[in-house]
């Protein structure tokens, strides 16, 4: 079945319409004009001047969508994207400060961040294999733990003492990702390459096929010779590696240092998870949903500027889309 057909069929459209109507009612109740608000969203996201902003916002969001989609394809859920992203972000911010980093500092930092995020995520899979701790729970608990520890490190041992803020030292110019157009940087190309890789593996490679089989029926996949434990470790490693990469891209592409809390405020992880859930982990549909959410959120900034409507409204819209699809169409109905 074509991937476009998965996202565009009436159910998704109906869900979006329902979300727009419910959200509009919410705006109306709080005393603003919903049509103005929505117009501001569309213009803020898609007007030619604003398109680079949308792409820049989409880079981490689509990255986190892929991070959520990979385990979901195999029927697993990684709720720990925040922790993995923060671990990757910190590693990405610290690596270029080491003396070993030369002209390849940025590349080195991205690789180190991916490895760190990947191993941290694999820890949750290991907990499930070794101690039967459900990954759904452990990935989230490990995320809270990572966020706390990283926050401590940034506030105390690794803090840039020349500023009064909880942030690390600026990374050298050589380690920053080159900009392409306006706010858009080379990180977008990296995420696009990762996205292409994920799609190819999902469609053409044996491991992609095996992961899909696990998603349809894990016991049957195991019976057919898939080594489920190793597969869970691999899927979680890949998921965490992408999350770590996203963290490093945000740090090296725009903020140039790790600022405590800055990676988590935009809630990329949760929007990414919602986009992945919308498409049931199918990568092309998930990426399309991720781009849609990125446009919605970028437009949300414009809406907040131009009308008095707070931009968190876009989060509400996203949640309504998911809930509506979950109910009417048994979205995410996984094999038992």
């Amino acid at each position, binding site marked *: 079945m074509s991937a476009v057909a998965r996202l565009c069929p009436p159910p998704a459209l109906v869900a979006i319409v329902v979300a727009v109507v419910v959200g509009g009612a*919410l705006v109306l109740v*709080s*005393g603003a004009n919903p049509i103005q608000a929505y117009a501001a969203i569309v213009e803020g996201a898609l007007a030619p001047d604003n398109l680079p902003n949308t792409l820049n916002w989409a880079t981490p969001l689509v990255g986190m969508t892929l991070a959520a989609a990979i385990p979901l394809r195999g*029927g*697993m*859920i990684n*709720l720990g994207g925040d922790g993995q992203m923060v671990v990757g972000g910190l590693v990405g911010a610290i690596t270029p400060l080491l003396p070993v980093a030369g002209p390849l500092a940025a590349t080195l930092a991205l690789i180190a961040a991916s490895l760190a995020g990947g191993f941290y995520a694999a820890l949750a899979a290991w*907990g*499930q294999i070794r*101690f*039967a*701790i*459900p*990954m*759904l*729970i*452990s990935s*989230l*608990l*490990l995320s*809270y*733990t990572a966020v*706390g*520890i990283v*926050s*401590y490190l940034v*506030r*105390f041992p690794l803090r840039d003492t020349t500023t009064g803020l909880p942030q690390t030292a600026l990374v050298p110019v050589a380690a920053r990702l080159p900009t392409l157009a306006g706010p858009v940087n080379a990180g977008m190309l990296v995420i696009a390459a990762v996205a292409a890789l994920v799609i190819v593996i999902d469609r053409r490679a044996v491991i992609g096929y095996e992961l899909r089989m696990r998603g349809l029926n894990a016991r049957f996949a195991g019976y057919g010779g898939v080594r489920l434990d190793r597969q869970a470790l691999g899927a979680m490693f890949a998921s965490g590696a992408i999350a770590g990469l996203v963290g490093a891209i945000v740090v090296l592409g725009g903020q140039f240092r790790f600022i405590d809390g800055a990676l988590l405020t935009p809630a990329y992880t*949760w929007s990414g*998870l*919602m986009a992945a*859930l919308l498409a049931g982990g199918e990568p092309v549909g998930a990426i399309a949903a991720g781009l849609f959410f990125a446009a919605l959120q970028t437009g949300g900034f414009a809406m907040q500027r131009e009308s008095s409507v*707070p931009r*968190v*409204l876009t*989060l*509400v819209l*996203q*949640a*309504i889309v*998911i*809930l509506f699809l*979950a*109910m*009417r169409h*048994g*979205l*995410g*109905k*996984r094999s038992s």
Partner: protein
Amino acid sequence: MTDFLTPFLMQSAVQAITPILLASLAGVLCGRVGVFNIALEGQMLIGAFAAVVGCYFAHSAAVGVLAAIVATIAFSLILAYGATVFRGDSVVICIGMNLLASGLTAYLLRAMFDVSGTFSDPSLVGISRIRVPALQVIPILGWGFARQTAITWGAWVLVVLIALLLFKTPVGLRLRGVGEQPDAAETLGVDMRRYRVVTVLASSALVGLAGAQLSLGAVTVFAEDMTAGRGWIAVVAVMLGRGHPVYSAAACALFGFADAVGLRLQGQGLPNQLTDIAPYVVTLAALALSHRKRARVAVPT
């Protein structure tokens, strides 16, 4: 050790346990009828917000608590009907509900009070505490309960009541039947769907109370995402207690104690970023240590 276990530490431990305990009781009830409820976090957040709203407009903590219960039940209609009548996947619905709660409370906070982050107002009245001076003389446990809200007392009474309900009454038998063998229960004339809907809604009242305790109990403030993972810890407590209210309560007590010890260590100079993670680390350790006792494949991953 006696230096460490001060009356203050015990009081804050008992206080920290209350919301987790109430939420985990709700989790136990939902789990017993076969609804895997991981929306406790979002339900609690809605309760905490509604409590502050009710209290702000009526200048009464009681109205706040009532508002929390009503709002949480209304919010939980999504899970009650979504997981039964509409046959949705409860994990997906619950994740959606958690995000909806986070977005909706943040939106309404801005729309209603024109603030972001935290909301606190002099007109907010906290839930009054029941003072039992006689308990003050009993070390440790007495210290903990000498000055607590009615919600805290109620939560512990509910542990016993829910255990009795589940294991000593015909209704409890039917409840458990619906979760364990829905087909058999159906054959015996138990309306499975109705039991699930009613249980999810009734249990959500408990989570609403948990939210009210959070925003009007220890402090009188609402902060965005102030539940900070307590709902998830309650989910773990249900798993550790294997769906038994008393064992789950014991697990909650452990986490609440870890929380209070973290606060205490903070007072002794440890940075709060590190002490804040104490409950999560304890939770993970408890899960790892109990793995032999827990049945495998109990929860979908």
